[in-house]
């Protein structure tokens, strides 16, 4: 007897089976991420076909170019700004290599670290820094790729930085505490990266399928690593801002993160 053709499909009585495909995706990625070191935020070499790779390059380049222009201006005022940007790139790189145990996936994952420079140096410089870090990672770590550099800059750099700083600014306007704002900046930045990456991934591999179902599946596939990772990233960003506030509040004033009156408190 074929169950599928039977009148009494068991599936109809079990809500779980309505989402069976999604559940499967979840189970599969959980299993897979148990055996590998997942850094799901980077889109690897070769995933995007030529046309999509070109599209994301075209989106990314103006942002990076603007970052360079801005850096040039700032560098004229303060000669130490370029070294600072270079060193922050190194730090973003180091942070993104730090393994974090993600309890739900039972494995290690890596934070993006974009929210931190976004809060301190502003989003446009952050895009540039991320572009540099991504190029090095693509070549020497196979995190991301040369052809997917544009896509990765758009997700990790552009959306990550702008989402992070927007949340931070809005929360600060609403008089939220420094650490709390930083926490949500980190969290939202991480989730925004994950969202954009899913869009890029889905459009890159959809072929002639419809976009939306695939997108949802990808989004769900990485829930077990990305949801907790966002929280870790938030906590990390908050911890960072808190530490700098306690140790060198003058720096936060200098970069316009807080006002001088706040530092005096």
């Amino acid at each position, binding site marked *: 007897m074929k169950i599928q053709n039977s009148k009494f499909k*068991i*599936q109809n009585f079990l809500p779980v*089976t309505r989402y*069976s*495909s999604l*559940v*499967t*995706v979840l189970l599969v990625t959980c299993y*897979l991420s148990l055996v*590998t070191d*997942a850094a*799901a935020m980077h*889109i*690897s*070499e*070769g*995933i*995007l*076909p030529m046309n999509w790779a070109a599209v994301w390059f075209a989106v990314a380049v103006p942002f990076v170019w603007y970052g*360079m222009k801005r*850096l040039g201006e700032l560098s004229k005022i303060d*000669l*130490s700004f*370029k*070294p*600072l*940007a*270079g*060193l*922050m*790139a*190194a*730090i973003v*790189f*180091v942070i993104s*290599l*730090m393994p974090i145990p993600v*309890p739900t996936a039972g494995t290690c994952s890596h934070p993006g670290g974009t929210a931190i420079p976004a809060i301190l140096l502003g989003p446009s410089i952050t895009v*540039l820094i991320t572009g*540099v870090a991504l*190029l*090095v990672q693509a*070549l*020497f*770590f*196979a995190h991301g790729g*040369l052809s997917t550099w544009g896509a990765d800059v758009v997700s990790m750099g552009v959306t990550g930085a702008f989402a992070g700083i927007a949340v931070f600014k809005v929360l600060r306007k609403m008089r939220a505490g420094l650490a709390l704002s930083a926490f949500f900046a980190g969290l939202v930045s991480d989730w925004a990266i994950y969202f954009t990456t899913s869009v890029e991934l889905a459009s890159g*591999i959809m*072929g002639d*399928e419809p976009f939306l179902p*695939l997108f949802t599946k990808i989004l769900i596939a990485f829930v077990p690593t990305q949801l907790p990772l966002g929280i870790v990233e938030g*906590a990390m*960003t908050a911890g*960072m*801002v*808190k*530490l700098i506030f306690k*140790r*060198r509040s003058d*720096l936060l004033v200098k970069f316009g993160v807080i006002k001088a009156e706040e530092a005096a408190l």
Partner: protein
Amino acid sequence: MNFSEHFNKGHILAKVDARVKLLVALALLLMVLSYKGIFFPLLMSAGALMLCIKMRIPLKAILARMAQPLFLALVILLLKLFFSGKDTMFVIKLPTSHFPLLTLAGHSDGLLEGIRITSRILGGVSIVMALGFATPFIEFVAALSWLRVPRPFIEIMMLAYRYLFVFLEDASTIYSAQKNRLGYAGIRKGLNSFGVLTGSLVLRGFEQSQKTADAMIQRGYTGDMPQLKSQPLSVAELAAAVIVVLAGGAVWMI
């Protein structure tokens, strides 16, 4: 840190101009991306892997670098197999066929599409990996500079590379020091310590950048780092590169 300079230095590609290596790799990469089947990417992958073995890169390093892209490739393959396409090949019912909570159908056309993407990933990743293992960072940067990548980008890249190792060491020492004082016993403590670790790194970056700027200024820095002139490209190498690319192109056409 698996930078190429940490491996065998006398390998077969060591003497080849980095610009040539970069151009060839980019050309082959473009061909892989625009190829419609699986033959060419897999061929490229096999070739690049063989090159890596020829360069005596430890197998462990190769696997470590391939792990993450392979993981993504697998996810994509499974997504494609089960959730796209129309020609059902097989049906899996879990846990048993009499009580199927999950019903999964594998599609042959989905599988094909998945294999196609997977082969593209394999081909692309292998080419770039071989390039990475064959080219010391410095030469890569010089090649980028020759390709007219803007100066500020290059400068930041060089500074980042220089201080990457300093900060990696700082990070590991701070981490050890925290562990030493039980900073990672428990999730809450762990998260907190982790924030302190990143904060310390960022602070270190600020302080270091001041000192670095001083050091640069006192050696005549006025806002732009000077640039070493690159040698002209050797005709022989360029010719060899063209032949390799043309050969690749010929295979690509088939």
